[in-house]
Protein backbone atom coordinates (compact mmCIF):
# COMPACT_ATOMS: atom_id res chain seq x y z
CA UNK A 1 0.00 0.00 0.00
CA UNK A 2 2.92 2.32 0.51
CA UNK A 3 4.81 1.68 -2.70
CA UNK A 4 4.25 4.18 -5.44
CA UNK A 5 6.00 2.26 -8.21
CA UNK A 6 3.63 1.15 -10.88
CA UNK A 7 5.86 -1.39 -12.59
CA UNK A 8 4.44 -4.92 -12.59
CA UNK A 9 5.79 -7.04 -9.76
CA UNK A 10 5.79 -10.77 -9.11
CA UNK A 11 2.29 -12.00 -8.45
CA UNK A 12 3.05 -13.38 -5.01
CA UNK A 13 4.15 -10.05 -3.61
CA UNK A 14 1.05 -8.36 -4.89
CA UNK A 15 -1.13 -10.94 -3.17
CA UNK A 16 0.72 -10.53 0.12
CA UNK A 17 0.56 -6.74 0.04
CA UNK A 18 -3.10 -6.80 -0.79
CA UNK A 19 -3.79 -9.09 2.17
CA UNK A 20 -1.88 -6.81 4.51
CA UNK A 21 -3.97 -3.90 3.30
CA UNK A 22 -7.04 -6.02 3.71
CA UNK A 23 -6.33 -6.94 7.31
CA UNK A 24 -5.62 -3.30 8.20
CA UNK A 25 -8.93 -2.39 6.57
CA UNK A 26 -10.83 -5.08 8.47
CA UNK A 27 -9.22 -4.00 11.73
CA UNK A 28 -10.33 -0.43 11.08
CA UNK A 29 -13.88 -1.61 10.35
CA UNK A 30 -14.04 -3.69 13.52
CA UNK A 31 -12.84 -0.71 15.60
CA UNK A 32 -15.44 1.56 14.00
CA UNK A 33 -18.16 -1.01 14.68
CA UNK A 34 -17.14 -1.45 18.32
CA UNK A 35 -17.09 2.31 18.92
CA UNK A 36 -20.48 2.59 17.19
CA UNK A 37 -22.20 -0.23 19.05
CA UNK A 38 -20.56 -0.07 22.47
CA UNK A 39 -22.51 2.95 23.80
CA UNK A 40 -25.77 1.10 23.08
CA UNK A 41 -24.56 -1.86 25.11
CA UNK A 42 -23.40 0.51 27.86
CA UNK A 43 -26.88 2.05 28.07
CA UNK A 44 -28.37 -1.41 28.60
CA UNK A 45 -25.68 -2.52 31.05
CA UNK A 46 -26.03 0.64 33.16
CA UNK A 47 -29.83 0.62 33.06
CA UNK A 48 -29.86 -2.90 34.51
CA UNK A 49 -27.47 -1.97 37.35
CA UNK A 50 -28.01 -0.78 40.89
CA UNK A 51 -26.96 2.89 40.91
CA UNK A 52 -25.11 2.56 44.25
CA UNK A 53 -23.27 -0.53 43.07
CA UNK A 54 -22.06 1.38 40.00
CA UNK A 55 -19.94 3.54 42.30
CA UNK A 56 -17.98 0.58 43.58
CA UNK A 57 -17.57 -1.27 40.32
CA UNK A 58 -17.75 1.20 37.43
CA UNK A 59 -15.85 -0.89 34.89
CA UNK A 60 -17.69 -4.22 35.01
CA UNK A 61 -18.81 -5.24 31.55
CA UNK A 62 -21.91 -6.91 33.00
CA UNK A 63 -24.67 -5.16 34.96
CA UNK A 64 -23.56 -4.49 38.52
CA UNK A 65 -25.96 -5.98 41.08
CA UNK A 66 -28.58 -6.77 38.40
CA UNK A 67 -31.94 -5.10 38.99
CA UNK A 68 -34.90 -3.73 37.04
CA UNK A 69 -35.15 -1.01 39.68
CA UNK A 70 -33.98 1.76 37.34
CA UNK A 71 -36.83 1.07 34.92
CA UNK A 72 -39.38 0.82 37.74
CA UNK A 73 -37.98 4.06 39.14
CA UNK A 74 -38.16 6.18 35.98
CA UNK A 75 -41.55 4.78 35.09
CA UNK A 76 -42.80 5.89 38.50
CA UNK A 77 -43.57 2.32 39.60
CA UNK A 78 -41.20 2.25 42.57
CA UNK A 79 -41.92 3.86 45.93
CA UNK A 80 -39.62 6.69 46.99
CA UNK A 81 -38.10 4.38 49.59
CA UNK A 82 -37.24 1.74 46.98
CA UNK A 83 -35.86 4.40 44.65
CA UNK A 84 -33.60 5.95 47.25
CA UNK A 85 -32.38 2.53 48.35
CA UNK A 86 -31.05 1.88 44.83
CA UNK A 87 -29.49 5.31 44.43
CA UNK A 88 -32.35 7.07 42.67
CA UNK A 89 -32.89 10.79 43.15
CA UNK A 90 -36.60 10.37 43.68
CA UNK A 91 -37.27 12.07 40.35
CA UNK A 92 -39.37 10.08 37.90
CA UNK A 93 -40.40 10.70 34.34
CA UNK A 94 -43.88 9.82 33.08
CA UNK A 95 -42.46 7.90 30.16
CA UNK A 96 -45.81 6.48 29.03
CA UNK A 97 -47.29 9.95 28.69
CA UNK A 98 -44.29 11.32 26.76
CA UNK A 99 -44.13 8.30 24.46
CA UNK A 100 -47.76 8.95 23.56
CA UNK A 101 -46.97 12.63 22.90
CA UNK A 102 -44.03 11.68 20.69
CA UNK A 103 -46.09 9.11 18.80
CA UNK A 104 -48.87 11.64 18.13
CA UNK A 105 -46.41 14.33 17.07
CA UNK A 106 -44.17 12.13 14.91
CA UNK A 107 -47.04 10.24 13.24
CA UNK A 108 -49.16 13.30 12.47
CA UNK A 109 -46.28 15.39 11.20
CA UNK A 110 -44.99 12.55 8.99
CA UNK A 111 -48.35 11.57 7.52
CA UNK A 112 -49.36 15.17 6.86
CA UNK A 113 -46.12 16.30 5.27
CA UNK A 114 -45.81 13.23 3.05
CA UNK A 115 -49.42 13.55 1.88
CA UNK A 116 -49.26 17.31 1.24
CA UNK A 117 -45.94 16.87 -0.54
CA UNK A 118 -47.34 14.06 -2.70
CA UNK A 119 -50.33 16.07 -3.96
CA UNK A 120 -48.13 19.09 -4.64
CA UNK A 121 -45.57 16.92 -6.42
CA UNK A 122 -48.34 15.49 -8.61
CA UNK A 123 -49.41 18.99 -9.61
CA UNK A 124 -45.81 19.82 -10.58
CA UNK A 125 -45.13 16.51 -12.34
CA UNK A 126 -48.34 15.81 -14.24
CA UNK A 127 -50.58 18.84 -14.57
CA UNK A 128 -50.11 21.66 -17.06
CA UNK A 129 -50.75 25.06 -15.61
CA UNK A 130 -49.60 28.63 -15.88
CA UNK A 131 -46.91 29.55 -13.36
CA UNK A 132 -45.88 25.97 -12.69
CA UNK A 133 -42.13 26.39 -13.25
CA UNK A 134 -41.98 29.72 -11.42
CA UNK A 135 -43.77 28.22 -8.42
CA UNK A 136 -41.50 25.18 -8.43
CA UNK A 137 -38.32 27.26 -8.47
CA UNK A 138 -39.66 29.46 -5.66
CA UNK A 139 -40.34 26.34 -3.58
CA UNK A 140 -36.83 25.05 -4.27
CA UNK A 141 -35.43 28.34 -3.00
CA UNK A 142 -36.67 27.37 0.47
CA UNK A 143 -33.98 24.67 0.54
CA UNK A 144 -31.42 27.44 0.80
CA UNK A 145 -32.91 28.98 3.96
CA UNK A 146 -31.53 27.36 7.11
CA UNK A 147 -33.79 26.84 10.11
CA UNK A 148 -31.96 29.40 12.20
CA UNK A 149 -33.46 32.32 10.28
CA UNK A 150 -37.08 31.23 10.53
CA UNK A 151 -37.15 29.75 14.06
CA UNK A 152 -37.55 32.93 16.11
CA UNK A 153 -40.13 34.62 13.85
CA UNK A 154 -42.03 31.33 13.64
CA UNK A 155 -42.08 31.20 17.43
CA UNK A 156 -43.47 34.74 17.59
CA UNK A 157 -46.07 33.87 14.94
CA UNK A 158 -47.11 30.67 16.74
CA UNK A 159 -47.47 32.70 19.92
CA UNK A 160 -49.64 35.27 18.11
CA UNK A 161 -51.84 32.46 16.80
CA UNK A 162 -52.28 31.32 20.41
CA UNK A 163 -50.87 27.91 19.57
CA UNK A 164 -48.02 27.72 22.08
CA UNK A 165 -48.07 24.46 24.00
CA UNK A 166 -50.38 22.71 21.53
CA UNK A 167 -49.83 19.92 19.01
CA UNK A 168 -50.99 22.29 16.26
CA UNK A 169 -48.27 24.78 17.17
CA UNK A 170 -45.64 22.03 17.14
CA UNK A 171 -46.87 20.67 13.80
CA UNK A 172 -47.73 23.67 11.62
CA UNK A 173 -44.30 24.93 10.55
CA UNK A 174 -43.19 21.50 9.34
CA UNK A 175 -46.40 19.63 8.47
CA UNK A 176 -47.52 21.69 5.47
CA UNK A 177 -44.50 22.32 3.33
CA UNK A 178 -41.25 20.52 2.64
CA UNK A 179 -39.28 21.65 -0.39
CA UNK A 180 -37.16 18.52 -0.31
CA UNK A 181 -40.12 16.11 -0.20
CA UNK A 182 -41.87 17.87 -3.09
CA UNK A 183 -38.70 17.94 -5.15
CA UNK A 184 -37.93 14.28 -4.43
CA UNK A 185 -41.44 13.01 -5.27
CA UNK A 186 -41.79 15.21 -8.36
CA UNK A 187 -38.54 13.81 -9.74
CA UNK A 188 -39.86 10.30 -9.22
CA UNK A 189 -43.31 10.97 -10.69
CA UNK A 190 -41.82 12.57 -13.82
CA UNK A 191 -39.94 9.33 -14.36
CA UNK A 192 -43.09 7.19 -14.07
CA UNK A 193 -44.60 5.89 -17.28
CA UNK A 194 -47.74 7.83 -18.16
CA UNK A 195 -49.39 4.92 -19.99
CA UNK A 196 -51.38 3.51 -17.06
CA UNK A 197 -52.51 6.96 -16.03
CA UNK A 198 -53.61 7.86 -19.57
CA UNK A 199 -55.48 4.58 -19.92
CA UNK A 200 -57.35 5.31 -16.70
CA UNK A 201 -58.12 8.86 -17.87
CA UNK A 202 -59.49 7.55 -21.19
CA UNK A 203 -61.66 5.12 -19.21
CA UNK A 204 -63.26 8.19 -17.72
CA UNK A 205 -61.55 8.31 -14.32
CA UNK A 206 -61.01 11.81 -12.97
CA UNK A 207 -57.58 13.26 -12.21
CA UNK A 208 -58.01 12.84 -8.46
CA UNK A 209 -59.10 9.22 -8.82
CA UNK A 210 -56.11 8.53 -11.07
CA UNK A 211 -53.82 10.11 -8.50
CA UNK A 212 -55.09 7.94 -5.65
CA UNK A 213 -55.54 4.72 -7.60
CA UNK A 214 -52.56 4.82 -9.96
CA UNK A 215 -49.89 7.41 -9.21
CA UNK A 216 -49.81 7.04 -5.43
CA UNK A 217 -49.50 3.21 -5.41
CA UNK A 218 -46.81 3.39 -8.10
CA UNK A 219 -44.83 5.82 -5.91
CA UNK A 220 -44.91 3.63 -2.83
CA UNK A 221 -41.10 3.23 -2.79
CA UNK A 222 -40.16 6.91 -2.44
CA UNK A 223 -43.21 7.51 -0.25
CA UNK A 224 -41.88 4.90 2.15
CA UNK A 225 -38.42 6.50 2.08
CA UNK A 226 -39.82 9.91 2.99
CA UNK A 227 -42.14 8.46 5.63
CA UNK A 228 -39.43 6.59 7.47
CA UNK A 229 -36.88 9.43 7.32
CA UNK A 230 -39.58 11.91 8.33
CA UNK A 231 -40.63 9.77 11.28
CA UNK A 232 -37.04 9.44 12.52
CA UNK A 233 -36.52 13.20 12.25
CA UNK A 234 -39.79 14.05 13.99
CA UNK A 235 -39.24 11.52 16.77
CA UNK A 236 -35.81 13.05 17.48
CA UNK A 237 -36.91 16.66 17.01
CA UNK A 238 -35.70 18.85 19.83
CA UNK A 239 -35.29 22.55 19.11
CA UNK A 240 -38.75 23.51 17.88
CA UNK A 241 -40.65 21.57 20.59
CA UNK A 242 -38.29 23.17 23.12
CA UNK A 243 -39.35 26.63 21.92
CA UNK A 244 -43.11 26.10 21.75
CA UNK A 245 -43.87 23.84 24.70
CA UNK A 246 -43.89 25.11 28.28
CA UNK A 247 -45.14 22.16 30.31
CA UNK A 248 -45.53 18.39 30.12
CA UNK A 249 -48.95 18.30 28.42
CA UNK A 250 -47.71 18.03 24.80
CA UNK A 251 -43.96 17.83 25.35
CA UNK A 252 -42.34 14.98 23.38
CA UNK A 253 -40.07 12.33 24.86
CA UNK A 254 -36.76 13.72 23.61
CA UNK A 255 -37.43 17.00 25.36
CA UNK A 256 -38.62 15.30 28.54
CA UNK A 257 -35.43 13.26 28.61
CA UNK A 258 -33.30 16.41 28.31
CA UNK A 259 -35.23 18.04 31.17
CA UNK A 260 -34.78 14.86 33.23
CA UNK A 261 -31.03 14.89 32.52
CA UNK A 262 -30.67 18.55 33.41
CA UNK A 263 -32.65 18.23 36.62
CA UNK A 264 -30.61 15.30 37.91
CA UNK A 265 -28.27 16.29 40.76
CA UNK A 266 -24.78 17.31 39.62
CA UNK A 267 -23.02 15.64 42.54
CA UNK A 268 -24.35 12.09 42.27
CA UNK A 269 -26.57 11.64 39.23
CA UNK A 270 -28.83 8.63 38.96
CA UNK A 271 -26.98 7.21 35.95
CA UNK A 272 -28.87 3.92 36.04
CA UNK A 273 -32.17 5.79 35.94
CA UNK A 274 -30.94 8.13 33.20
CA UNK A 275 -29.82 5.22 31.06
CA UNK A 276 -33.12 3.41 31.61
CA UNK A 277 -34.98 6.51 30.40
CA UNK A 278 -32.54 6.86 27.49
CA UNK A 279 -33.14 3.27 26.46
CA UNK A 280 -36.89 3.74 26.47
CA UNK A 281 -36.50 6.92 24.40
CA UNK A 282 -34.35 5.14 21.84
CA UNK A 283 -36.34 1.91 21.81
CA UNK A 284 -38.91 2.80 19.11
CA UNK A 285 -36.06 3.76 16.77
CA UNK A 286 -34.21 0.53 17.56
CA UNK A 287 -37.36 -1.49 16.80
CA UNK A 288 -37.85 0.47 13.58
CA UNK A 289 -34.25 -0.35 12.74
CA UNK A 290 -34.70 -4.06 13.35
CA UNK A 291 -37.80 -4.20 11.16
CA UNK A 292 -36.72 -1.85 8.34
CA UNK A 293 -32.91 -1.75 8.72
CA UNK A 294 -32.12 -2.60 5.13
CA UNK A 295 -34.70 -0.21 3.69
CA UNK A 296 -33.47 2.60 5.95
CA UNK A 297 -29.90 2.12 4.72
CA UNK A 298 -31.04 2.13 1.10
CA UNK A 299 -33.30 5.13 1.68
CA UNK A 300 -30.49 7.24 3.03
CA UNK A 301 -28.15 6.34 0.19
CA UNK A 302 -30.96 7.00 -2.26
CA UNK A 303 -31.76 10.52 -0.96
CA UNK A 304 -28.09 11.46 -1.07
CA UNK A 305 -27.59 10.48 -4.67
CA UNK A 306 -30.92 11.48 -6.15
Amino acid at each position, binding site marked *: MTSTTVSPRPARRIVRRFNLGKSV*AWTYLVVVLIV*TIFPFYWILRTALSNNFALLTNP*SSLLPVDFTLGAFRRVLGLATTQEAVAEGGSGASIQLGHFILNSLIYATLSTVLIVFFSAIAAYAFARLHWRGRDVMFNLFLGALMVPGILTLLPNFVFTKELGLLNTFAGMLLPT*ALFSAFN*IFFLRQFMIGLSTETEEAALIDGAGR*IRVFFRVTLPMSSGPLFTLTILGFITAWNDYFWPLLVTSDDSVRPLTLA*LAVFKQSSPQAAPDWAGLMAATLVAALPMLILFMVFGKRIVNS*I*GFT*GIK
Partner: protein
Amino acid sequence: MAIVTSTPTQPAAVPSAVAPARRKSPRPNSPAHRGDGKLAWILISPALVGFLLFFVYPTIRGAYLSFTDFRVLSAPVWIGLDNFVQLIHDDVFWNALGVTVYFVIISVTLSIGLSIITAVILHRLTASTVLRGLIILPFLISGVVAATVWSWMLDAQLGIVNILIERLGGDNILFLTSRGWAIPSIALISVWKNLGYTSIIIFAGLQTIPPTIYEAGRIDGANELQMFRRLTLPLLRPVLALVLVLNVIGAFQVFDIVQVATKGGPANASNVLQMYIYSKAFGQFDFGYASAMSLALFAVLIVITFLQMRLLRASESDTD
Protein backbone atom coordinates in the same frame (compact mmCIF):
# COMPACT_ATOMS: atom_id res chain seq x y z
CA MET B 1 -31.43 17.72 13.72
CA ALA B 2 -33.74 19.39 11.36
CA ILE B 3 -31.36 19.23 8.46
CA VAL B 4 -32.05 15.60 7.93
CA THR B 5 -35.26 15.93 5.99
CA SER B 6 -34.19 19.07 4.23
CA THR B 7 -30.96 17.20 3.64
CA PRO B 8 -30.15 16.98 0.01
CA THR B 9 -29.96 20.67 -0.71
CA GLN B 10 -27.89 19.29 -3.55
CA PRO B 11 -27.75 22.22 -5.88
CA ALA B 12 -26.05 19.81 -8.27
CA ALA B 13 -29.39 18.20 -8.99
CA VAL B 14 -31.34 21.39 -9.39
CA PRO B 15 -30.44 22.29 -12.96
CA SER B 16 -31.20 18.82 -14.23
CA ALA B 17 -34.43 18.86 -12.29
CA VAL B 18 -35.64 22.00 -13.95
CA ALA B 19 -34.74 20.85 -17.42
CA PRO B 20 -37.60 18.37 -17.98
CA ALA B 21 -40.14 20.95 -16.94
CA ARG B 22 -38.85 23.33 -19.59
CA ARG B 23 -38.90 20.69 -22.31
CA LYS B 24 -42.60 20.04 -22.18
CA SER B 25 -43.73 23.58 -21.61
CA PRO B 26 -47.17 23.92 -20.04
CA ARG B 27 -50.03 24.14 -22.50
CA PRO B 28 -52.93 24.99 -20.28
CA ASN B 29 -55.34 25.02 -23.21
CA SER B 30 -54.67 21.61 -24.75
CA PRO B 31 -57.82 19.48 -24.45
CA ALA B 32 -56.26 16.77 -22.27
CA HIS B 33 -55.25 19.33 -19.72
CA ARG B 34 -58.34 21.49 -19.55
CA GLY B 35 -59.11 22.26 -15.93
CA ASP B 36 -55.60 21.39 -14.79
CA GLY B 37 -54.92 24.89 -13.52
CA LYS B 38 -57.71 24.93 -10.97
CA LEU B 39 -56.90 21.44 -9.70
CA ALA B 40 -53.17 22.24 -9.52
CA TRP B 41 -53.73 25.24 -7.28
CA ILE B 42 -55.97 23.16 -5.03
CA LEU B 43 -53.32 20.43 -4.82
CA ILE B 44 -50.46 22.77 -3.99
CA SER B 45 -52.51 24.95 -1.61
CA PRO B 46 -51.42 23.25 1.66
CA ALA B 47 -47.77 23.46 0.61
CA LEU B 48 -48.24 27.03 -0.62
CA VAL B 49 -49.79 28.11 2.70
CA GLY B 50 -46.92 26.48 4.59
CA PHE B 51 -44.38 28.07 2.26
CA LEU B 52 -45.82 31.57 2.58
CA LEU B 53 -46.61 31.52 6.31
CA PHE B 54 -43.65 29.56 7.67
CA PHE B 55 -40.84 30.31 5.19
CA VAL B 56 -41.38 33.56 3.29
CA TYR B 57 -43.10 35.50 6.06
CA PRO B 58 -40.66 34.55 8.87
CA THR B 59 -37.65 35.16 6.61
CA ILE B 60 -38.80 38.71 5.87
CA ARG B 61 -39.95 39.23 9.44
CA GLY B 62 -36.67 37.89 10.86
CA ALA B 63 -34.74 40.36 8.73
CA TYR B 64 -37.04 43.18 9.89
CA LEU B 65 -36.81 42.24 13.58
CA SER B 66 -33.00 42.43 13.31
CA PHE B 67 -33.36 46.20 13.05
CA THR B 68 -35.69 46.54 16.02
CA ASP B 69 -35.75 46.43 19.78
CA PHE B 70 -38.25 43.65 20.39
CA ARG B 71 -39.08 42.06 23.75
CA VAL B 72 -42.05 39.94 22.58
CA LEU B 73 -44.53 41.44 25.01
CA SER B 74 -44.52 44.90 23.42
CA ALA B 75 -44.42 45.88 19.75
CA PRO B 76 -41.01 46.02 18.02
CA VAL B 77 -39.37 49.46 17.90
CA TRP B 78 -37.19 50.36 14.89
CA ILE B 79 -33.65 51.11 16.04
CA GLY B 80 -31.77 50.94 12.73
CA LEU B 81 -28.34 49.35 12.94
CA ASP B 82 -28.07 49.45 16.75
CA ASN B 83 -28.25 45.65 17.10
CA PHE B 84 -25.41 45.22 14.65
CA VAL B 85 -23.32 47.89 16.37
CA GLN B 86 -23.90 46.04 19.64
CA LEU B 87 -22.94 42.80 17.86
CA ILE B 88 -19.56 44.18 16.82
CA HIS B 89 -18.77 45.13 20.43
CA ASP B 90 -20.17 41.97 22.00
CA ASP B 91 -17.28 39.84 23.25
CA VAL B 92 -19.58 36.93 24.03
CA PHE B 93 -20.77 36.92 20.41
CA TRP B 94 -17.22 36.82 19.03
CA ASN B 95 -16.36 34.11 21.52
CA ALA B 96 -19.44 32.15 20.42
CA LEU B 97 -18.49 32.60 16.76
CA GLY B 98 -14.94 31.42 17.48
CA VAL B 99 -16.15 28.44 19.50
CA THR B 100 -18.60 27.51 16.74
CA VAL B 101 -15.98 27.75 13.99
CA TYR B 102 -13.64 25.64 16.13
CA PHE B 103 -16.38 23.03 16.52
CA VAL B 104 -17.21 23.11 12.80
CA ILE B 105 -13.57 22.59 11.82
CA ILE B 106 -12.98 19.65 14.17
CA SER B 107 -16.28 17.88 13.62
CA VAL B 108 -16.49 18.35 9.85
CA THR B 109 -12.86 17.38 9.19
CA LEU B 110 -13.12 14.26 11.33
CA SER B 111 -16.58 13.35 10.11
CA ILE B 112 -15.79 13.68 6.39
CA GLY B 113 -12.34 12.11 6.68
CA LEU B 114 -13.51 9.09 8.65
CA SER B 115 -16.64 8.73 6.52
CA ILE B 116 -14.63 8.59 3.30
CA ILE B 117 -12.31 5.95 4.77
CA THR B 118 -15.24 3.95 6.17
CA ALA B 119 -17.25 4.12 2.95
CA VAL B 120 -14.31 3.15 0.73
CA ILE B 121 -13.37 0.24 3.00
CA LEU B 122 -16.96 -0.98 3.18
CA HIS B 123 -17.23 -0.69 -0.60
CA ARG B 124 -14.01 -2.60 -1.28
CA LEU B 125 -14.44 -5.30 1.37
CA THR B 126 -18.03 -6.28 1.78
CA ALA B 127 -21.49 -5.91 0.32
CA SER B 128 -23.04 -6.68 3.71
CA THR B 129 -26.10 -4.56 4.39
CA VAL B 130 -25.95 -5.68 8.01
CA LEU B 131 -22.62 -3.90 8.54
CA ARG B 132 -23.90 -0.77 6.84
CA GLY B 133 -27.02 -1.01 8.98
CA LEU B 134 -25.04 -1.25 12.20
CA ILE B 135 -22.88 1.80 11.54
CA ILE B 136 -25.99 3.87 10.85
CA LEU B 137 -27.54 3.05 14.24
CA PRO B 138 -26.42 6.29 15.98
CA PHE B 139 -28.14 8.34 13.26
CA LEU B 140 -31.50 6.96 14.36
CA ILE B 141 -31.30 8.26 17.92
CA SER B 142 -31.68 11.88 18.96
CA GLY B 143 -28.84 14.22 19.85
CA VAL B 144 -30.27 14.27 23.37
CA VAL B 145 -29.90 10.50 23.74
CA ALA B 146 -26.40 10.59 22.23
CA ALA B 147 -25.33 13.41 24.54
CA THR B 148 -26.80 11.68 27.60
CA VAL B 149 -25.03 8.37 27.07
CA TRP B 150 -21.72 10.06 26.23
CA SER B 151 -22.01 12.31 29.32
CA TRP B 152 -22.10 9.08 31.29
CA MET B 153 -19.26 7.41 29.37
CA LEU B 154 -17.08 10.55 29.57
CA ASP B 155 -17.84 11.20 33.25
CA ALA B 156 -14.72 12.35 35.10
CA GLN B 157 -14.82 9.73 37.87
CA LEU B 158 -17.05 6.83 36.84
CA GLY B 159 -17.01 7.12 33.05
CA ILE B 160 -15.77 4.03 31.25
CA VAL B 161 -13.55 6.09 28.94
CA ASN B 162 -11.62 7.60 31.84
CA ILE B 163 -11.37 4.21 33.52
CA LEU B 164 -9.80 2.82 30.34
CA ILE B 165 -7.40 5.77 30.16
CA GLU B 166 -6.33 5.15 33.76
CA ARG B 167 -5.84 1.43 33.12
CA LEU B 168 -3.55 2.37 30.24
CA GLY B 169 -1.56 4.59 32.57
CA GLY B 170 -2.99 7.98 31.60
CA ASP B 171 -4.49 10.74 33.73
CA ASN B 172 -8.17 11.54 34.16
CA ILE B 173 -9.49 13.84 31.48
CA LEU B 174 -12.27 16.30 32.36
CA PHE B 175 -13.91 15.83 28.96
CA LEU B 176 -17.04 17.90 29.46
CA THR B 177 -16.01 20.10 32.38
CA SER B 178 -12.70 21.61 31.31
CA ARG B 179 -12.27 24.56 28.95
CA GLY B 180 -9.85 22.80 26.66
CA TRP B 181 -11.79 19.56 26.21
CA ALA B 182 -15.42 20.74 26.06
CA ILE B 183 -15.55 21.50 22.31
CA PRO B 184 -13.42 18.54 21.16
CA SER B 185 -15.61 16.23 23.28
CA ILE B 186 -18.82 17.64 21.81
CA ALA B 187 -17.28 17.28 18.35
CA LEU B 188 -16.52 13.61 19.09
CA ILE B 189 -20.12 12.98 20.15
CA SER B 190 -21.35 14.68 17.00
CA VAL B 191 -18.96 12.69 14.79
CA TRP B 192 -20.06 9.46 16.48
CA LYS B 193 -23.67 10.32 15.72
CA ASN B 194 -23.16 11.38 12.07
CA LEU B 195 -20.41 9.08 10.84
CA GLY B 196 -22.73 6.32 9.66
CA TYR B 197 -25.13 8.63 7.88
CA THR B 198 -22.36 10.42 5.98
CA SER B 199 -20.64 7.12 5.19
CA ILE B 200 -23.80 5.66 3.67
CA ILE B 201 -24.28 8.66 1.39
CA ILE B 202 -20.65 8.43 0.25
CA PHE B 203 -21.05 4.66 -0.13
CA ALA B 204 -24.04 5.22 -2.41
CA GLY B 205 -21.87 7.62 -4.40
CA LEU B 206 -19.18 4.96 -4.73
CA GLN B 207 -21.74 2.53 -6.14
CA THR B 208 -22.43 4.89 -9.03
CA ILE B 209 -18.79 4.71 -10.19
CA PRO B 210 -18.62 2.09 -12.94
CA PRO B 211 -16.34 -0.85 -11.94
CA THR B 212 -14.77 -0.77 -15.43
CA ILE B 213 -12.89 2.37 -14.40
CA TYR B 214 -11.12 0.43 -11.64
CA GLU B 215 -10.44 -2.48 -13.96
CA ALA B 216 -8.78 -0.08 -16.37
CA GLY B 217 -6.77 1.37 -13.49
CA ARG B 218 -5.65 -2.07 -12.38
CA ILE B 219 -4.58 -2.99 -15.90
CA ASP B 220 -2.52 0.19 -15.96
CA GLY B 221 -0.81 -1.10 -12.81
CA ALA B 222 -2.17 1.37 -10.27
CA ASN B 223 -2.26 0.25 -6.64
CA GLU B 224 -5.17 0.74 -4.23
CA LEU B 225 -3.89 4.02 -2.85
CA GLN B 226 -3.27 5.47 -6.29
CA MET B 227 -6.69 4.40 -7.51
CA PHE B 228 -8.22 6.05 -4.44
CA ARG B 229 -6.42 9.34 -5.08
CA ARG B 230 -6.63 9.45 -8.86
CA LEU B 231 -9.99 7.78 -9.50
CA THR B 232 -12.23 7.57 -6.46
CA LEU B 233 -11.75 11.05 -5.01
CA PRO B 234 -12.21 13.00 -8.28
CA LEU B 235 -15.21 10.90 -9.30
CA LEU B 236 -16.81 11.35 -5.89
CA ARG B 237 -16.48 15.13 -5.99
CA PRO B 238 -20.18 15.98 -6.48
CA VAL B 239 -21.21 13.70 -3.60
CA LEU B 240 -18.41 14.99 -1.38
CA ALA B 241 -19.45 18.57 -2.11
CA LEU B 242 -23.01 17.76 -1.07
CA VAL B 243 -21.89 16.01 2.09
CA LEU B 244 -19.48 18.82 2.97
CA VAL B 245 -22.08 21.57 2.56
CA LEU B 246 -24.65 19.63 4.61
CA ASN B 247 -22.14 18.86 7.36
CA VAL B 248 -20.96 22.46 7.61
CA ILE B 249 -24.49 23.90 7.67
CA GLY B 250 -25.54 21.33 10.28
CA ALA B 251 -22.43 21.88 12.41
CA PHE B 252 -22.90 25.66 12.46
CA GLN B 253 -26.34 25.09 13.98
CA VAL B 254 -25.28 22.54 16.61
CA PHE B 255 -27.47 22.83 19.68
CA ASP B 256 -29.03 19.78 21.33
CA ILE B 257 -25.76 17.95 22.06
CA VAL B 258 -24.27 21.11 23.59
CA GLN B 259 -27.32 21.90 25.67
CA VAL B 260 -27.49 18.43 27.16
CA ALA B 261 -23.75 17.72 27.53
CA THR B 262 -22.27 21.03 28.75
CA LYS B 263 -25.01 23.70 28.71
CA GLY B 264 -22.46 25.93 26.96
CA GLY B 265 -19.94 25.74 29.80
CA PRO B 266 -17.58 25.78 31.48
CA ALA B 267 -17.49 29.60 31.40
CA ASN B 268 -18.70 29.95 27.78
CA ALA B 269 -16.07 27.46 26.55
CA SER B 270 -18.74 25.63 24.54
CA ASN B 271 -21.25 28.45 24.20
CA VAL B 272 -21.90 27.96 20.47
CA LEU B 273 -23.79 30.55 18.42
CA GLN B 274 -27.13 28.74 18.37
CA MET B 275 -26.87 28.35 22.15
CA TYR B 276 -26.14 32.08 22.61
CA ILE B 277 -28.99 33.06 20.28
CA TYR B 278 -31.32 30.80 22.26
CA SER B 279 -30.29 32.23 25.62
CA LYS B 280 -30.61 35.82 24.35
CA ALA B 281 -34.09 35.15 22.98
CA PHE B 282 -35.55 32.90 25.66
CA GLY B 283 -33.39 33.75 28.66
CA GLN B 284 -33.38 37.54 28.30
CA PHE B 285 -36.28 37.93 25.81
CA ASP B 286 -34.08 40.10 23.60
CA PHE B 287 -35.64 38.93 20.33
CA GLY B 288 -34.37 41.85 18.27
CA TYR B 289 -30.74 41.16 19.11
CA ALA B 290 -31.22 37.39 18.76
CA SER B 291 -32.72 37.97 15.29
CA ALA B 292 -29.74 40.12 14.31
CA MET B 293 -27.40 37.30 15.32
CA SER B 294 -29.48 34.80 13.34
CA LEU B 295 -29.22 37.05 10.29
CA ALA B 296 -25.46 37.31 10.77
CA LEU B 297 -25.15 33.53 11.03
CA PHE B 298 -27.30 33.17 7.91
CA ALA B 299 -24.97 35.53 6.03
CA VAL B 300 -21.94 33.54 7.17
CA LEU B 301 -23.58 30.30 6.00
CA ILE B 302 -24.42 31.71 2.56
CA VAL B 303 -20.87 32.96 2.00
CA ILE B 304 -19.35 29.65 3.16
CA THR B 305 -21.74 27.53 1.09
CA PHE B 306 -21.05 29.67 -1.98
CA LEU B 307 -17.29 29.37 -1.49
CA GLN B 308 -17.51 25.61 -1.05
CA MET B 309 -19.55 25.18 -4.19
CA ARG B 310 -17.08 27.30 -6.16
CA LEU B 311 -14.02 25.53 -4.78
CA LEU B 312 -15.42 22.08 -5.36
CA ARG B 313 -17.13 22.91 -8.67
CA ALA B 314 -19.94 20.83 -7.23
CA SER B 315 -22.22 20.81 -10.23
CA GLU B 316 -19.65 19.31 -12.58
CA SER B 317 -18.72 15.68 -12.60
CA ASP B 318 -15.57 14.13 -13.99
CA THR B 319 -17.40 11.05 -15.23
CA ASP B 320 -18.25 12.58 -18.60
